[in-house]
């Protein structure tokens, strides 16, 4: 494959020198090394070229440069695809300049490299720790090489400074980390006036499980179990992203049947989560009928998954090199029949939902995110599509098998709860269509290619469109096929900001409705 030199040339025109790194794959998503001094101007250039920001992280050096620390950032252009930039940091006082003024979504990731690697991010608008809670020791930087994975950290005194508001009638409502329902933990600090939300501040990190540290030293076959549990409701997509990253690094091409099966699983996951969430959104507006119906459909899906694949939520079916499940003709038919029957039932329920004035009253116009705001944070997935950002890796990257499918993207405009629900209804229908197409023409070859880990120092990048949006996964190998550094980026990292924007001026009782319409992952954010 030819090397993608587009961004390198653009940078060259602006006096930013870059070096192409040979040991990174795939070549159309190149890794370019730039000088530290150009870090912020490269981000500025990406902004000017209408690229979107997808991820930022740091890593210690690999086999040949262990003493160094690097910062990485990834941008994507609709036509010219992804580019990874990396810069070596100074050895003694590692520091990098913030790119938050160009891409505000980078800020929480900068907060993470600050606390995890002891890298100073200069000019960061909000330097507070993010995943590292107040009771951690100040000198604990878990992703540094000299921090043992099994360190038992003492509990230290400390306090997290929340945003305050002054003025008469403004009051604070702290919510969580233990929420009122059966959901993941996180803290929300509302500043409210009367019934209306003035500001929502999110405090996450409660489910931080040290996943990136724990991935280090594992073999890919073992690590995929952990990577696919970054967020349990996106287990297929995370498994796929991880598998694709290690396959890119190792130069393993998977059989067409395996990629078709992966897509079938991923689209089923998309359908199941959209169906469940639409029900839950209706439940938050007290439309219990829709909730009951949607949960029934979701359970039907889970039961068939158990019957066909042995797991209700489709965990651990993807492995490096391929998949571990297959469908025979009879199973194929079962899956097709259920998928088309589900699509028909969802459509009939959709008309009931659309005609229900009480429901529509709650969702139309609630929690709008304008296109400008959505672009400014780089919102992704169905939330982005509801606001007018029609980015979809299944179309842009068109990784197999989507290269032979014509994925239709619903184009929303209003960016409110109603549009987010509308996009999800559309995506259910589209996923059903894709599944039927894939099942109707399942390639007849192997389920798995032989897996062979690459040499030390080789890395791979993959971007997969999960039901929430784009997942970014980067893996670098070390000795004996062990993973030396792996980073996972959940779309929620960006979309959580969308929720903060959406709920300004929304009445407090409509918060759950908005929260559910985004349904960001806590676990995927906290890792």
């Amino acid at each position, binding site marked *: 494959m030819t090397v993608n030199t587009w961004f390198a040339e653009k940078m060259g025109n602006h006096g930013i020198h870059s070096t192409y790194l040979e040991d990174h794959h795939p070549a159309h998503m190149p890794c370019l090394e730039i000088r530290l001094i150009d870090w912020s101007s490269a981000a500025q250039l990406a902004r000017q070229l209408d690229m979107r920001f997808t991820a930022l992280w740091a890593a210690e050096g690999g086999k040949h440069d262990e003493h160094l620390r690097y910062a990485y950032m990834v941008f994507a252009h609709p036509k010219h695809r992804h580019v990874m930039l990396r810069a070596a940091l100074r050895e003694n006082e590692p520091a990098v300049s913030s790119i938050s003024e160009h891409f505000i979504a980078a800020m929480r990731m900068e907060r993470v490299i600050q606390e995890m690697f002891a890298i100073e991010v200069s000019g960061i608008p909000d330097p507070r720790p993010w995943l590292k809670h107040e009771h951690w020791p100040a000198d604990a930087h878990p992703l540094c090489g000299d921090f043992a994975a099994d360190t038992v950290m003492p509990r230290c005194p400390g306090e997290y400074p929340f945003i305050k508001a002054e003025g008469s009638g403004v009051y604070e409502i702290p919510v969580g980390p233990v929420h009122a329902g059966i959901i993941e933990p996180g803290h929300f600090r509302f500043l409210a006036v009367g019934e209306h939300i003035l500001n929502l501040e999110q405090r996450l990190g*409660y*489910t931080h*499980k040290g996943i990136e*540290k724990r991935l280090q030293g594992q073999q890919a076959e073992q690590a995929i179990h952990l990577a696919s549990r970054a967020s349990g409701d996106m287990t297929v997509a995370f498994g796929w992203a991880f598998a694709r990253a290690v396959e890119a690094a190792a130069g393993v091409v998977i059989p067409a049947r395996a990629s078709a099966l992966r897509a079938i699983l991923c689209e089923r996951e998309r359908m199941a989560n959209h169906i469940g969430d639409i029900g839950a959104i209706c439940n938050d507006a007290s439309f219990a009928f829709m909730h009951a119906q949607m949960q029934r459909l979701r359970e039907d899906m889970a039961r068939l998954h158990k019957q066909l694949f042995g797991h209700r939520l489709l965990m651990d079916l993807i492995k490096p090199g391929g998949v571990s499940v297959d469908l025979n003709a009879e199973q194929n038919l079962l899956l097709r029949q259920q998928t088309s029957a589900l699509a028909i039932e969802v459509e009939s329920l959709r*008309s009931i939902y659309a005609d229900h004035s009480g429901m529509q009253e709650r969702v139309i116009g609630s929690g709008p995110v304008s296109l400008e705001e959505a672009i400014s944070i780089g919102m992704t997935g169905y939330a982005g599509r509801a606001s007018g950002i029609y980015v979809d890796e299944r179309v842009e990257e068109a990784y197999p098998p989507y290269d032979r499918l014509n994925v239709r993207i619903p184009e929303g405009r209003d960016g409110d709860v109603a549009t987010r629900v509308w996009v999800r209804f559309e995506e259910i229908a589209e996923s059903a269509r894709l599944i039927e197409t894939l099942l109707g023409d399942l390639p007849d070859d192997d389920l798995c290619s032989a897996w062979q880990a690459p040499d030390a120092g080789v890395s791979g990048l993959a971007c997969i469109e999960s039901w929430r949006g784009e997942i970014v996964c980067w893996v670098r190998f070390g000795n004996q096929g062990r993973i030396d550094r792996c980073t996972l980026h959940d779309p929620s990292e960006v979309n959580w900001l969308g929720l903060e924007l959406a709920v300004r001026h929304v009445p407090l009782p409509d918060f759950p409705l908005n929260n559910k319409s985004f349904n960001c*992952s806590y676990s995927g954010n*906290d890792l």
Partner: protein
Amino acid sequence: MLRILKKALFTGVKSEVLAEAGEQIETVGPELEAAIKKRFRGSLAIRAVDAGSCNGCELEIHATNNCYYDIERYGIHFTASPRFADMLLVTGPVTRNMETALIMTYEAMPKPSLVVAMGDCAANCGVFGKNNYAIAGAVADIIPVDVVIHGCPPEPTDIIRGILTAISRT
């Protein structure tokens, strides 16, 4: 409205008549109901706490509320406050960042209380592992546990069976 009624009518009753369901839920249901009637005056209130799970377990707890399992018909309901909860259903390995919140939730419950650790992570930290700087331990390392439900994640019938086991012990 007519369409809602029509849909509801044609969907029919999906709650599995326990004797016909065939699998584990068959025997669990009536026993559970009897135990709740006897020991909890017909109502068992559960507070679910995610102490750091991947959210897979939460999906399956939600499933126990769907029309097939309909856990409410036995008198079980999930409550928003630990203050009036009889049982704490904990998922996930307990992360260091959730340790305090879990202990506070447990202490806020009226005693005697029951604790069910649900899922492999709650049982033994699962894939995330005990020797992990970010993990405080399995649930039993933090608060007293009555029953452990294994599985990644446990299926709804296993959850219902685990709840029954816990209340049968009181």
